[in-house]
C-alpha cells in the first residue's frame, strides 16, 4: 500500500485543484498586485492571467494524458532519460516542499499578528504540520475526501464575507477603468497569475483520475472557481479600501473583513471567523503539497510511501522557519512564484515538444 492505488472521481479532482489554488493568495494578492498595477484595474489583470493559466492547464493536461496512469515523477525519466528525469523530479519535489513550508509559515504569521500574540510561532507550525501528517499519511483518497468537506464551507463563507462587505464598496474607488491605458494591467499579470499557481497539482492528480478523459473539464472548472473568487476579492478589497490604501496594508483582505460592521446582525469581529477560514484554506494547499512531495520521493526512489511522509517533516519545518521575518516570508513567496512559472509554464511545454519529437521519430522507424 503506497498510497497510489486509489482512484478519485473527476469532481474530486476539480475540488482538489480549487482547494490547492486557493491559499495564501487570499490575503496577500490585493497588496502585491496593487503595488504593481497602481490603478484600480487589477481585476482586468486577474482575468487575463486567468486566461494564461487556462492555457498552462491545457498543456499540462495534454502532457499527462499521453502517459495514462502515470504521475510526472514516473514518466519524466521515460521521456527525457533517467538522469535528466531524476533532476527534474527533485526540482519539482523541492518546489512542493517549499510551498508547503511557505503556506505553514504564512498561516502562522497571520495567526501571530491577529490572534495568538504570545503563542510561539514554532508551536503553531509544529501543530499544523502534525495535523497535516495525520491526513497525508493515509493517502490521496482520504485527502480529497477531506477537501470535499471543506470546499463548500470555504466557498460559502468567503462569499458570505464578500456579501457583507458590499456596503463598504465605493464604485468610485474602482473607476476609472483603464484610466492610464493598458500598461498598468500588463504589469499586474505576473503577480495575479502567481496567485493562481497550483495547477501543477494536475501533473500528479490526473494519474489517479478514474476517467482521465474528463481531466480537461476538471482542470477548467477547478481553475475557474479560484479565479472567480480572487476576482471578487480584488474588487471588494480595492472597491472598499481604495488602491492607494491597499498598497499600505500588510494583509488588505483581513483589514477589509475587520471593517465589516453589521448592526442588524448583532455581530462584529468577523475577522475571527475569517482567520479560521484562512487556516483551512492554507491547510488544504499545505496537505496537497506535502502529499505531492512525499509521493514524489517515494516514486523517484521506488520505496514505500509512509517513511517519506515522516522524513519530510523536518524539511518542511525548516522551510517554514527559514525566513527570518515577515519580509523574508514575502520574499520566499516571490521566489516560489518564479519556480512556479518554470514548473507550470516551461516544463510542460518542453516535455510536450520532446514527446512530440519522439513520437515522430518512432513513427518513422
Amino acid at each position: 500500500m503506497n498510497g497510489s492505488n486509489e482512484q478519485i472521481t473527476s469532481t474530486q479532482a476539480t475540488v482538489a485543484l480549487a482547494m490547492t489554488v486557493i491559499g495564501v493568495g487570499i490575503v496577500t494578492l490585493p497588496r502585491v498586485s496593487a503595488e504593481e498595477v497602481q490603478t484600480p484595474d487589477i481585476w482586468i489583470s486577474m482575468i487575463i492571467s486567468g486566461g494564461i493559466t487556462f492555457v498552462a492547464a491545457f498543456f499540462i493536461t495534454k502532457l499527462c494524458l499521453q502517459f495514462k496512469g502515470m504521475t510526472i515523477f514516473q514518466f519524466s525519466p521515460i521521456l527525457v532519460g533517467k538522469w535528466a528525469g531524476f533532476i527534474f523530479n527533485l526540482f519539482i519535489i523541492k518546489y512542493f516542499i517549499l510551498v508547503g513550508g511557505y503556506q505553514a509559515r504564512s498561516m502562522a504569521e497571520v495567526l501571530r499578528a491577529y490572534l495568538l500574540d504570545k503563542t510561539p510561532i514554532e508551536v503553531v507550525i509544529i501543530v499544523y504540520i502534525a495535523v497535516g501528517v495525520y491526513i497525508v499519511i493515509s493517502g490521496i483518497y482520504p485527502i480529497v475526501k477531506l477537501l470535499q468537506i471543506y470546499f463548500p464551507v470555504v466557498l460559502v463563507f468567503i462569499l458570505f464575507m464578500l456579501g457583507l462587505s458590499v456596503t463598504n464598496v465605493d464604485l468610485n474607488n474602482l473607476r476609472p477603468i483603464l484610466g492610464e491605458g493598458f500598461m498598468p494591467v500588463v504589469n499586474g499579470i505576473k503577480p495575479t497569475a502567481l496567485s493562481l499557481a497550483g495547477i501543477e497539482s494536475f501533473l500528479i492528480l490526473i494519474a489517479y483520475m478514474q476517467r482521465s478523459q474528463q481531466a480537461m473539464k476538471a482542470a477548467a472548472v477547478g481553475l475557474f472557481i479560484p479565479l472567480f473568487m480572487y476576482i471578487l476579492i480584488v474588487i471588494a478589497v480595492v472597491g472598499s479600501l481604495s488602491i492607494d490604501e491597499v498598497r499600505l496594508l500588510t494583509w488588505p483582505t483581513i483589514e477589509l473583513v475587520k471593517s465589516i460592521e453589521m448592526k442588524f446582525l448583532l455581530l462584529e469581529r468577523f475577522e475571527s471567523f475569517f482567520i479560521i477560514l484562512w487556516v483551512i484554506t492554507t491547510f488544504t494547499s499545505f496537505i496537497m503539497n506535502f502529499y505531492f512531495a512525499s509521493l514524489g520521493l517515494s516514486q523517484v526512489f521506488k520505496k514505500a510511501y509512509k517513511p517519506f511522509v515522516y522524513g519530510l517533516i523536518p524539511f518542511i519545518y525548516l522551510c517554514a522557519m527559514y525566513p527570518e521575518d515577515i519580509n523574508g516570508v514575502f520574499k520566499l513567496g516571490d521566489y516560489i512564484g518564479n519556480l512556479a512559472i518554470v514548473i507550470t509554464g516551461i516544463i510542460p511545454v518542453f516535455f510536450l515538444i520532446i514527446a512530440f519529437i519522439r513520437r515522430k521519430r518512432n513513427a518513422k522507424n
Partner: protein
Amino acid sequence: MRRIKKSILICCCISILFMGGCWDRIDIEDMGLAVGVGVDYQEYSTKRLTPEFTIQSVVPKVLAGENGGGGSQAAPFQNLTMDESSLFEAGREASTVTSRSPNYAHLKVLVISKEAAQSINLLQLLNFFFRDHEIRRTVHVLISEEKASEILSIKGTKDPVPALKLLSITENMETKTAKMPTKLSLGDFSEKMSASSSFLVQKVQKFKDGVQIIGAAVIKGNTQKMIGELNEDETFGINCITGEAQAGAVTGVDKETDKIISYEIDHLKSTIKPKVNGEAISYTVNINTEGRLAEDWIPNSDAFNEKFIRNAEKQVEREFMRLMEAGLAKTQKELKVDVAGFGESLRINQPKVWKKVKKNWEEQFPEASIDINVKVNIKQFQTQGRKMNK
C-alpha cells in the same frame, strides 16, 4: 492487553486536563475595555512635540449595577491620562496605574484636540492606530475644540459613558442633520491620507453642560495637519455638494413677506461634472433634492395651491445656493483646499488630465470656476396645508 489499552485511554483523558488551554488566554473580566481615546497636545518638555494620551475604559460593574438599580454613585467609566513620547508607550504606561491593561479591540471613538491636530502631523500622530492589530478601521474620529481629555470626561445624562454618547451623536448625521460632515472612520482617514486629499472631520465642542457636534475641521492632504474649520452653514453647503446631505433642514426666507420657510431634505443627489478647456478646468454641479415643507411663517400660506409650492421651492433654492457658495468661498478661495471631491470627479472622468494636475492640484483648484444649479422639489407638506381659510 486489554488492561494496557484501558490505562492508555485513562492517561489520554487525564492529559487533556493539562494540555488543553491557550497561551493567549485573557479572562474577559481582566480586560480593560477601552471605548474611547483622546489625543492632546502637550507643552513640550523636550524639543519634540509630545502627545498626551487619554484612555477611557468602561467599568462594567457600575454599568451593570445601573440596570439592577444598585444606586452606586461611581462613574461607569475611568479616564487615564498619560504623557509619553509615543502613544504606544503611553498606552503601556497606563498598565503601571491600572490593574486592567487597556485593550483596544472595542475602541469606538478617537478624539483629537484641535491644538494637537494643528501642530502635529496627523499621519505620524495616528500611525499607532493604523498599525495596531486590535484597533478596528471603524473607529470614529472627531476633532475637539477644547482638550480631548475634557470632552471625554463630560458625562451625558442618557448615555453614562462619554465616548459612547459621542458615537451616537455622530450617527445623527445620516438621519437628522447635515450640520456636521459625514462620519469619518479611521479607515476613511487612512484612505484620504494615502491619496493625500483634503477632507473634513466632525468637530465636537462644549455646549452648556454637555457636548455638541457641529461644523467641521479641515485637514489638508499635503501637510497632513488641520488648517481651518467650517461653521455649520459652510459644512452644510459642502455636504450638499458631495451629496452627503441626505437629511436636515434648510430654512429659506420668503422675499416678498420676509418670513421663513423650512424645508426638510428627504433625498439629495449631486453630480459634479468637470469640463477641461485647454489649461482651464471648470465644473458644473447639479443638485437635485426632494423633500417636504416642514414649517412656514407666511401668513395666508396655501400649500394646496401649486403656485405657493413653486414659490417656496424658489426661496429654498436660494438658501441652498447661499449655503453652498459660503462653503465653497471658505474652502476653495480662503483655505484653498478641495474637500468636496472635485479632484475625485476629475480623476474618474478625465484620468489623463488628472495625471497631469494631480501633484499641484490644490494650487490649481482655487482658479477653477464652479457653476451650481439647484433644483428643489417639494413633494409633500404633511398634515396641514393652510393656516387659515380665506
